[in-house]
């Protein structure tokens, strides 16, 4: 059996733990830089505040509907997520963290367990220890556990947040209930194609001839079909290293001068390099993107991106930053007011396992230098050591006007209790 444990309205729930006054109130969380809505509580969804709404257009709507609008507080969400995930690991040795707020659990050799009870225990422990409400779906396969989870979430009164698909009857009923576009792994385009074939629910999808699915779609859809039929085909994923790492941000103002853009790109590139070093990878490809403000339709628009292929893999901030800066100069157009830039590194290989190039290689001094920089930056906080073309005084300069305190990661931000 598999379980999918999903934290309900995770970001809003994290805020509520430390500010119980927000319990039952509509909450919207904004993206980095307070741009648009990236997460909504059920109450905010009920008011029809759309996902992705640019806040400057919805400000008065939020005000008149008493929606609490908050900047995203990733230090808090990250810490609460790791607490939840490590509690979940107490229930089985086989767990896969699927996203910041979802985890798959596999129960091998738990045949004699009452999964209704076990699911309840999971939910109760996470709620009591962390204050985060969850929904638990349990079923014989991963894809079905996703469906069971949707049912638990949709019908909290009947299910008390836990739903188990443990009979053929329940499986059929669940599959007939779930729309094809809501099935895990069925994208919008695929859903459209399936609907044209008269396939509107997950149940229809499981009825399609095996041979036809294999021919018409890829192996992924075939596996998904088997999984939904109750035959475990999708395995628990090992935690994989990321295949690409990106740092992309909007600027707090628009820039039309190359110096500011060079500085930003260098900062984003250094951040990518640092993330590479953290996961023990090096990259072969650096992609740089640059774009104007697409909301300002009256201004001249420009979006461009370019990539640099390296002849040897690296995770040195110096090299990645240099390449990114010269790449951005090649796509920069004078006269454009730029609002956003990004650096993406891909073609990742583990540091200790890559093809050596005889003729070109990294200066061997870079590795120990990066190690020294990383350990000093983690010790002294706030990036005391930077590359020369970065502004010493700024990191993201994110606009975070409605940020809640870092309740769990900063001693000056912990909750105050009146006594």
């Amino acid at each position, binding site marked *: 059996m598999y379980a999918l444990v999903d934290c309900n309205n995770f970001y809003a729930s994290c805020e509520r733990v430390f500010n119980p006054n927000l319990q039952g109130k509509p909450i919207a969380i904004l993206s980095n830089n307070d741009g648009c809505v990236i997460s909504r509580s059920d109450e905010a969804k009920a008011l029809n505040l759309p996902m992705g709404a640019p806040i400057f257009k919805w400000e008065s709507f939020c005000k008149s509907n008493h929606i609490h609008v908050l900047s995203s507080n990733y230090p808090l969400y990250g810490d609460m997520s790791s607490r939840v995930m490590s509690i979940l690991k107490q229930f089985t040795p086989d767990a896969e963290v699927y996203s910041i707020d979802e985890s798959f659990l596999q129960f091998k050799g738990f045949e004699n367990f009452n999964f209704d009870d076990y699911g309840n225990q999971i939910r109760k422990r996470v709620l009591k220890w962390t204050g985060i409400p969850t929904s638990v779906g349990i079923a014989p396969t991963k894809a079905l556990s996703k469906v069971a989870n949707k049912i638990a979430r949709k019908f909290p009164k009947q299910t008390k947040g836990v739903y188990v698909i443990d009979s053929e009857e329940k499986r059929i009923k669940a599959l007939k209930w779930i729309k094809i576009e809501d099935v895990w792994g069925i994208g919008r385009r695929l859903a459209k194609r399936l609907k044209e074939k008269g396939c509107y629910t997950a149940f229809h999808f499981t009825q399609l001839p095996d041979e036809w699915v294999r021919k018409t779609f890829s192996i992924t859809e075939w596996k998904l079909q088997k999984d939904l039929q109750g035959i475990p085909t999708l395995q628990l994923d090992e935690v994989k290293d990321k295949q690409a790492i990106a740092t992309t941000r909007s600027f707090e103002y628009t820039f039309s001068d190359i110096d500011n853009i060079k500085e930003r790109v260098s900062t984003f590139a250094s951040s990518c390099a640092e993330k590479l070093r953290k996961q023990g990878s090096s990259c072969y490809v650096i992609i740089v993107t640059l774009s104007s403000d697409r909301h300002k339709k009256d201004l001249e628009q420009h979006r461009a991106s370019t990539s640099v292929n390296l002849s040897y893999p690296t995770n040195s901030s110096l090299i990645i930053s240099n390449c990114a800066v010269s790449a951005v100069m090649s796509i920069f157009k004078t006269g454009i007011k730029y609002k956003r830039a990004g650096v993406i590194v891909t073609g990742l290989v583990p540091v200790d396992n890559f093809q050596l190039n005889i003729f070109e290689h990294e200066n061997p001094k870079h590795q120990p230098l990066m190690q020294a920089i990383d350990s000093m930056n983690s010790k002294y906080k706030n990036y005391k050591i930077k590359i020369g073309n970065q502004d010493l005084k700024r990191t993201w300069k994110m606009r975070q006007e409605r940020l809640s305190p870092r309740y769990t990661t900063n001693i000056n931000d912990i909750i105050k209790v009146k*006594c």
Partner: protein
Amino acid sequence: MIAHKSGSLTFFTPEAVDGASAHFFDAGVSAGFPSPAEDFKEQRLSLDEELVKNKEATFYAKVSGQSMIGAGLDDNDLLVIDRSLEPTNNKIAVCFLDGEFTVKRLRVSNGEVWLQPENPDYPIIHITEENNFLIWGIVTNVIKKV
């Protein structure tokens, strides 16, 4: 052994030798007397381990006020809170009461709850249906600056 020769470059391949191995001395080889403490090494004391029994459920808070001075909770003290502990009579708890966090000793009897301060100048609070009340976590330790 020469593997390949071109006009300007000569490539060599290394020769493999079987049975050539070395012994690894874990303790290191030193010329001095071996440390008599080596076999008695123990873990250093950690306050984290002493004060935090359940790290997933442990949170911190700062005290503001005088109502619990009798229990040793002074203004600005740091509280260690364990949410996984059950709230029972006589425990000191961080509660959320009518819109703000407060810390008091729990008095539970006949299904009723009182919040008891540890300072005679403060009143005992009786929790009723009208209160917006939540027990947030149990205080396990107080850390104070001296």
